[in-house]
């Protein structure tokens, strides 16, 4: 009997896993953004002395994982599982990281939803009694993502208004079966929603329906309302996606105008930094969560947060073949109390 399920899609943990250490590493542009002071490490050079952007991304993820483990006052040998993913083909950033770190590893592909996807799976492993310590991690790099999904860096193309800026960074969270919080109390893994948006430069609009679906289901299953949360924050919907979520939720009878934000909007100053619709990428929700949200929760400024990382599950090939962009969103409740 699945005793921990509530409603249609949500899991309520019996022994909620505690977050005992986090780390966030970001590139220079993110370091110039409004959340600069919340990150553990801001790089001056986005190649970090490596020969390729892919190597730099892998190094960021590796160092973020090590730093999170150190912040949790543990050593690498104490960790039972690493659950990680990224944007690059065959998730190479995570797999090369796992090669260096040597922890039993589950690789995920959830595009930009990877942070909450890994937190969902890591939490279930812990509450299921399969591990005491699990590290959840993800990374993305503007330059490695651009070359895979878009144009060469020096090509003189204009970016669209709806385009988003892939965050360079990596975030890692150490979950533990014991600890003093904040705790992961509920998770609502999402369904894929696809309303036929084919423009890969408008991912906010492609992912917004998935976010709405998951948030609605979360409220239905748990009985929570937007007022029960200090902050409801999506992963990387950007300015257009956020607007769509507010509109669609209003139609469903929920008012999100008060405490709803998006990591992609928080991480950059859109006007000063010319990021168009906002930040995106796996690292977007990863560094905002492991930097800003975690630290604000530790200070007690935020007590209950709903984090919904959003992913666009297309590929350059599916885009060329004229397929639409499937969206996904996984929600995680992080609470200072059990």
């Amino acid at each position, binding site marked *: 009997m699945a005793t921990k399920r509530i409603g249609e899609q949500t899991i309520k943990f019996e022994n909620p896993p505690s977050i005992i250490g986090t780390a966030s590493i970001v590139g220079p542009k993110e370091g110039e953004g409004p959340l600069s002071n919340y990150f553990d490490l801001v790089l001056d050079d986005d190649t970090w002395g490596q*020969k*390729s952007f892919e190597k730099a991304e892998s190094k960021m993820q590796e160092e973020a994982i090590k730093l999170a483990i150190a912040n949790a006052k543990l050593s690498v040998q104490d960790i039972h599982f690493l659950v990680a993913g990224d944007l690059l083909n065959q998730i190479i950033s995570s797999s090369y990281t796992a090669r260096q770190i040597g922890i039993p590893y589950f690789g995920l592909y959830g595009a930009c939803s990877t942070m909450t996807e890994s937190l969902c799976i890591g939490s279930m492993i812990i509450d299921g009694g399969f591990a005491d310590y699990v590290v959840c991690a993800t990374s993305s790099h503007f330059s490695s993502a651009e*070359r895979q999904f878009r*144009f*060469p*860096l*020096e*090509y*003189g*193309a*204009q*970016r669209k*208004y*709806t385009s988003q800026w892939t965050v360079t960074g990596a975030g890692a969270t150490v979950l533990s079966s014991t600890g003093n919080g904040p705790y992961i109390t509920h998770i609502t893994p999402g369904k894929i*929603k696809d*309303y*036929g*948006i084919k423009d890969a430069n*408008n991912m906010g*609009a492609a992912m917004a*329906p998935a976010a*709405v*679906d998951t948030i*609605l289901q979360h409220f239905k299953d748990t009985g929570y309302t937007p007022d029960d949360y200090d902050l409801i924050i999506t992963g990387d919907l950007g300015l*257009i996606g956020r*607007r*769509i979520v507010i*509109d*669609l939720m209003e139609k*469903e009878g929920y008012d999100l105008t008060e405490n709803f934000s998006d990591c992609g909007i928080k991480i950059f100053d859109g006007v000063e930094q010319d990021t168009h619709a906002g930040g995106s990428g796996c690292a977007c929700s990863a560094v905002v969560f492991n930097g800003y949200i975690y630290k604000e929760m530790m200070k007690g400024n935020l007590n209950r947060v709903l984090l919904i990382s959003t992913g666009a599950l297309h590929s350059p090939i599916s885009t060329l073949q004229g397929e639409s962009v499937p969206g996904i969103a996984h929600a995680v409740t992080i609470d200072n109390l059990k």
Partner: protein
Amino acid sequence: MDNITNKEYQEYVKKKIPKPPYLKNAIRAFLTGGIICLVGQIIRNMLFSFGLNENQVVSGTAIILVFIGSFLTGLGIYDKIGKFGGAGAVIPITGFANSIVSTAMEYKREGYIFGVASKMFTIAGPVLVFGIGGSIVVGLLYIIFSSGR
């Protein structure tokens, strides 16, 4: 959420996307393209003043413009010109140079054969195919309609 059709959602999303400032973009493209052409004209006049003939001047001008486009790409300046000028920077021959040099630079890490050499034309390739293809069609039409005269 389930009672919205794909079409309704796509219509609604269209309304949410801000309109680009077409006039401003067109003026910027006009200025950028115009300046590049002006530079081309200056080069052309200079080459004539060196006593070169028409054929030599045409090739020389193109060669120098391609060099300038490539050089500015290497310095990381041409992408900024492209961002400002849009089609005004993409369409002249300097933009063509940018599309080839930027890809060549990007794929250096994958090696000279399967990286630089094979990826070099990923953006310029279609321009070459349709450009050369188009000129062949026009050439054939010219032969057909001008034969007999």
